[in-house]
């Protein structure tokens, strides 16, 4: 939970300085790594991440919370099939979760034009690449098991 809270805090700090398109979705990264560690608590991480991201959202908070719960449930289900402590599996899960999340937010805001695709691609890439980085930082800070 410390890793998740740290990720949420860092996410909120970074978006104050940079465009949210260039900042990794650390809330989702934290939630995903939390679920990978404790798959049984997927609902808790889903709700907490949804609430944290929708704190300042203006539209469809129920959709965003629902999106996090779906991601949490699917990752928890995946834990029966795959070893979620494997870094490559975590990155694969993050890639799918980010694609789903990006599709949901574009859909609920009715955004569909080419220039935004570049931004989404950057956001998706930096978010997926943040997974190993956050995991290593978590290990160094002893909030993620070695």
């Amino acid at each position, binding site marked *: 939970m410390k890793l998740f809270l740290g990720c949420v805090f860092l996410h909120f700090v970074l978006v104050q300085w940079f465009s949210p398109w260039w900042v990794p979705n650390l809330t989702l990264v934290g939630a995903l790594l939390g679920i990978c560690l404790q798959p049984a608590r997927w609902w808790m991480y889903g709700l907490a991440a949804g609430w944290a991201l929708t704190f*300042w959202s*203006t539209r469809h908070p129920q959709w965003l919370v629902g999106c996090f719960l779906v991601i949490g449930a699917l990752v928890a289900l995946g834990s029966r099939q795959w070893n979620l402590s494997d870094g490559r599996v975590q990155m694969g899960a993050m890639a799918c979760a980010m694609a789903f999340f990006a599709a949901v937010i574009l859909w609920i*805001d009715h*955004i569909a034009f080419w220039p*935004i695709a570049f*931004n989404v691609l950057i956001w998706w890439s930096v978010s997926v690449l943040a997974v190993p980085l956050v995991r290593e930082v978590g290990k160094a800070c002893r909030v993620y098991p070695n």
Partner: protein
Amino acid sequence: MNRSRISLLAGIVLVISVLFYQPFRNLAGSIILLPLTATKAVFRFVVQIPFLARLSEDNQTLRNTVLEQHLELVRLREELRHLEHLEALNEQTEELSGISAQVIGRSPIPTQHTILIDRGRQDGVVVASIVVNVGGVLGRVIEVYPKTSLVLLLTDPDSRVSSLVERTREMALLIGMSHAECRLIHLDSDADIEIGDRILTAGLGGPFPKGLTLGSITRIKRDEDTNRAVAWVRPEADMGHLEEVMILWPTEFQ
């Protein structure tokens, strides 16, 4: 004999040069004073030896003082910049009443362009108050809490502002796109618009008074088939780096 004459002549020339030619005089003075200067330096150094420890402390104290003064200078510069910013805002909006505010947060969801400001219901902010900075209009207040307010920026997809082209008075609607640029729609394909034209608020419906700067046209696309044109507008205000803003009461409160 000849050699002694030449030496004498050279000596005379040298003496005259030293006496009357300034660079030679300076050089000669320096050479003559060199041993004296060196002796004085050695003497001063020897005299200062007992005070060396204190000098080191003094040096450290002075360094600290310089650092403190440097930090103070930085703080004062920042304060001056803040005051100049507020003054510029006041000049721009002197006929409109409002209050200044600080941006304290920003939505982490990239498609929802909202900011949180440190003024709320207790400061008199109401829903639909207009938020501007020196660049122009930023957006409008959509939610008011006791001490904070949520502002919907022009670049948010929910933002709709009736606008006009400053040069030709063409009317249009400015909509956000979750992008650095907004889109100007409801234009005829033969609308008299050019890249670089400034876009202002039209003051038709909604909270925005007429004549506030929104941005300038960066791109135009005309479609003869549908008889429609679309223009892309870059907001004058830098939405990515917002610090101080001004909240203006909506037109019905003016």
